[in-house]
């Protein structure tokens, strides 16, 4: 007879003198019943925990401004500094690590309309007092108290009040927007070139950070105009149904840009194909005042006149991934992603600068391997079961302020009735033009 029976030695499985017992695995599926159901339960728990830990609001920077915050400047090369400009002409520089003020200066007599960093870390501000000012590298101001007068390195005078300013990625060139677009050399006091195409007032102008000689501008005549500095001429113009408030180029995909529109939506456009939008980002119930891409180019934050900011995953469907709001936050005029793409800043009418997490349930502490692995596993599970009704419901649920909820319901009814009316007219044999896709609806005209 040949015989063998299972005999496990205790010393192998419970070794003496150590607390770490071996963990033998057997991946035979029969030993792991209900794997789908258990995985689903884990995914459900992970989703619930995700919502439980969702605390997006971190705090405000210092004591904010006295007037509303209308603009931010984030230097993509510096992680810990952010500048903000206010309605009373004050510009403040903030230290992000401890959320304190580095310096505050009364830069302009009017509203600080826009700010940007030059390639070498200098700050350019423009305001309604018809001036553009250049401020030195912040490291040279270290140790100065706010009592010391911080003085601009250079002041440029314009003929009209400035609305927007943007600096070239490498060259010593910046562009301003007022009644026309001025292209300036940093070392000269007068613009080298002036560009315009029809508009009486230009809201915003932005250099493309990758295709560096391309310039996009948006005016009050509902136009979105692209210029090429190599030719010093406008290239193409897009007329939308309502005017554009903000432009942001995608830092990763050079052709794509996001615009924030008065019609409550943000649009993603490919500048080569302006006849239709790449994506329509809906959900806001008032005009979108500012948009900002995350440095990864995957996410977009929008600030709106409806007192909320929303974060969108640009690649996915056109609804927001998250909505942030507080009871006291007023209309948002400026938003920014920090260069590490983990935080979002919002500046609103109430003068506060609020700091938010880009991912509401993420924490920034150092994680143990075990914790990290658990989080990664949970993330994969949530992704795998995201379409299950209960998980989707929990993941999507957000508490909205009453006014926003009411407004969004009203908006839904309004849009529904327009659609119903159109359907009815078509049904009853009225000859109407072909249905326009949602992504083309805002396009009025393309001019070459």
């Amino acid at each position, binding site marked *: *007879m*040949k*015989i*063998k*029976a*299972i*005999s*496990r*030695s*205790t010393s*192998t*499985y*419970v070794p003496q003198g150590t607390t770490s*017992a*071996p*963990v*033998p*695995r*057997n*991946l*035979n*599926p*029969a*030993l*792991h*019943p*209900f*794997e*789908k*159901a*258990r995985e*689903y*339960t*884990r995914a459900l*728990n992970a989703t619930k925990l995700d919502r439980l830990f969702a605390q997006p609001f971190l705090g405000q920077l210092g004591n904010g401004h006295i007037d509303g915050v209308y603009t931010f400047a984030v230097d993509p090369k510096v992680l810990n500094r952010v500048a903000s400009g206010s309605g009373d002409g004050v510009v403040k520089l903030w230290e992000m690590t401890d959320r304190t003020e580095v310096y505050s200066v009364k830069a302009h007599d009017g509203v600080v309309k826009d700010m940007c960093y030059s390639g070498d870390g200098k700050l350019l501000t423009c305001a309604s007092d018809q001036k553009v000012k250049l401020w030195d590298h912040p490291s040279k101001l270290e140790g100065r108290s706010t009592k010391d007068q911080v003085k601009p390195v250079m002041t440029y005078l314009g003929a009209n009040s400035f609305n927007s300013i943007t600096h070239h990625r490498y060259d010593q060139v910046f562009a301003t927007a007022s009644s026309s677009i001025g292209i300036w050399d940093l070392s000269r006091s007068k613009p080298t070139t002036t560009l315009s195409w029809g508009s009486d007032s230009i809201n915003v102008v932005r250099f493309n950070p990758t295709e560096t000689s391309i310039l996009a501008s948006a005016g009050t005549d509902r136009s979105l105009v692209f210029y090429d500095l190599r030719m010093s001429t406008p290239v193409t113009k897009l007329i939308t149904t309502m005017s554009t408030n903000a432009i942001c180029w995608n830092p990763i995909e050079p052709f794509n840009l996001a615009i924030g529109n008065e019609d409550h939506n943000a649009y993603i456009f490919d500048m080569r194909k302006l006849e239709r939008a790449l994506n329509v980002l809906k959900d806001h119930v008032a005009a979108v005042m500012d948009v900002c891409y995350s440095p990864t180019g995957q996410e977009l934050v929008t600030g709106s006149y409806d007192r909320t900011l929303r974060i969108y995953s640009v690649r996915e469907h056109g609804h927001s991934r998250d909505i942030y709001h507080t009871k006291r936050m007023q209309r948002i005029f400026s938003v920014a992603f920090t260069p590490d793409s983990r935080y979002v800043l919002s500046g609103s009418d109430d003068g506060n600068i609020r700091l938010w997490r880009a991912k509401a349930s993420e924490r920034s502490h150092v994680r143990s391997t075990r914790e990290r692995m658990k989080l990664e596993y949970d993330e994969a599970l949530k992704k*795998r*079961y995201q379409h*299950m009704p209960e998980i989707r419901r929990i993941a999507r649920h957000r508490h909205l302020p009453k006014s926003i909820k009411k407004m969004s319901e009203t908006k839904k009814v309004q849009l529904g009735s327009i659609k119903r009316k159109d359907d009815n007219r078509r049904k009853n044999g009225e000859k109407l033009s072909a249905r326009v896709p949602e992504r083309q609806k805002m396009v009025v005209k393309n001019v070459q």
Partner: protein
Amino acid sequence: MASDDEGPLVVASTRPKKVSAKTSLQKHRQDTAAEAEEKAIQSFRKNAVEQYGRGAQVPVKSIKTKRLRENMKRMEHKFKEGAVQAKAAELLLEENPGYLEAEGLEKTYHFSQKDLQKELDVGTAKKGFELKLPNFGPYCIDYNRNGTDLLLGGRKGHVAAFDWRSSSLHTELQLNETIRDVKWLHNSQFFAVSQKKYVYIYDLKGIEIHCLKNHIEVTNMEFLPYHFLLATIGNAGWLKYQDTSTGQHVCEINTKLGSPMSMTQNQRNAIVHVGHAKGLVTLWSPNVTTPLVKMLCHKGPVRAVAVDREGYYMATAGQESLVSIWDIRTYKKVHSYSTPIPANSLHISDRGMLAIGWGSHTQVWKDALRTKANSPYIQHHTPANVVEDVRFCPFEDILGVGHVGGFESLIVPGAGEANFDALELNPFESKKQRQEAEVRLLLNKLKPEMISLDPDVIGTLDRRKAGEKDGETWQDAEKKKAEEKIEIRNRQRGKNSALRRHLRKSGKKNIIDLKRLKLEEMKEKRKRLAQGLAESKREELGPAVARFYRPPVR
């Protein structure tokens, strides 16, 4: 070797290079070796996907959206690689399953327990033991989920819970009333005892924790560990589910089939199988008030039911002295075995051995489910002690037998799963590990609504149309589907010869008529078309010329 030519480089040789017979033979050997290796790898991958894969592959090529197709392709590749890696990880398994082989004229069923114990090492031989408890029998028994502890329940009121490996007693109770069944709950800390009137839950110290007053005169109990459900059925034929983690009474269902004879659970999908006096076996989930499936298994009462670990086969013992094996994927009989007298108890081990207790005999059958075995693997006789309950110990080669005169632990080599998964069930767990496992089990507790015939139904697409969905739960739909499967066609008048009936039931596979011939021809034609024109061209040219034919390059 082809590469060891030296001297000036020959740019283009007019003649084919001379190759010695020896080198060509070597090359041929190398090629065949490489081919064989490639073949071995392919078969390894195929086996891996069969063993560890999760169902059929998605037909990726038919997906029209490019993005989705690429995603699905990536996913399929990932799953396949996962299966291959799981198969490769078999190398790390530490233990091998047991075996017992007869040599020469020996037969394995002639070996007594004493013979086996003589041949085994002392530690293993000690696992076969006998407890003489003549006063309170017959004994029903239960091993806990990781096989460390044993629970004995004597009909006349004796309950004992002990760690059978170290033979240390946890608790012993004299309840002075009838005990019909005993069951461990999710770990060895609690157990349920169905007593004369109610079901009671005791902890390991023997302290009565709960009295479940709505479970009356319970004859059989089952515990569904992943759902934390205690399923009981009593003399009145009411199947009741109680959540043991929250204490909530989940549901009670009237089977309407009288007093039950036997009960078991399918570990794969947590469906409860109940054997009735009418010869029916009914399958229940707590979500539907009628049985999911009714199977007429025997002519008399179904005395015992057992389901294997994978949930493929069910064994039933009937009053007519038959033990039948059923395929519970198709609900069809596979084959049956006869016992001299009706069997009292059945159990199927992790590795698919079937234990039958009939009279005072215990038999273990090997390979008896998928195929019909000719003779038992191991036999054991307990003279004058009628066997009440047989149960295999999880992760051990042990069969526990509870009978009138006490308890016996039999060694059955090859019965148990040799390699446990410590993250699932660990026979060597420490106190801390046990506590953590309990918490984890509670966190991942499954809802009773998730119980269904197909345990992987979650995450799949609900293909019912919008109209069909109204009011009907997916459990109802599943029941309907199961009913369709076992539908037997009505008797057709005038067409009832034995042969015809047989043919009708076996799907007319061997009737060859004109229609059939035509269909076959069509099938053949299609096959040829699929193989491409090249094949037909070759046929046309004939074997002598065909070998020179090369299909044109497209």
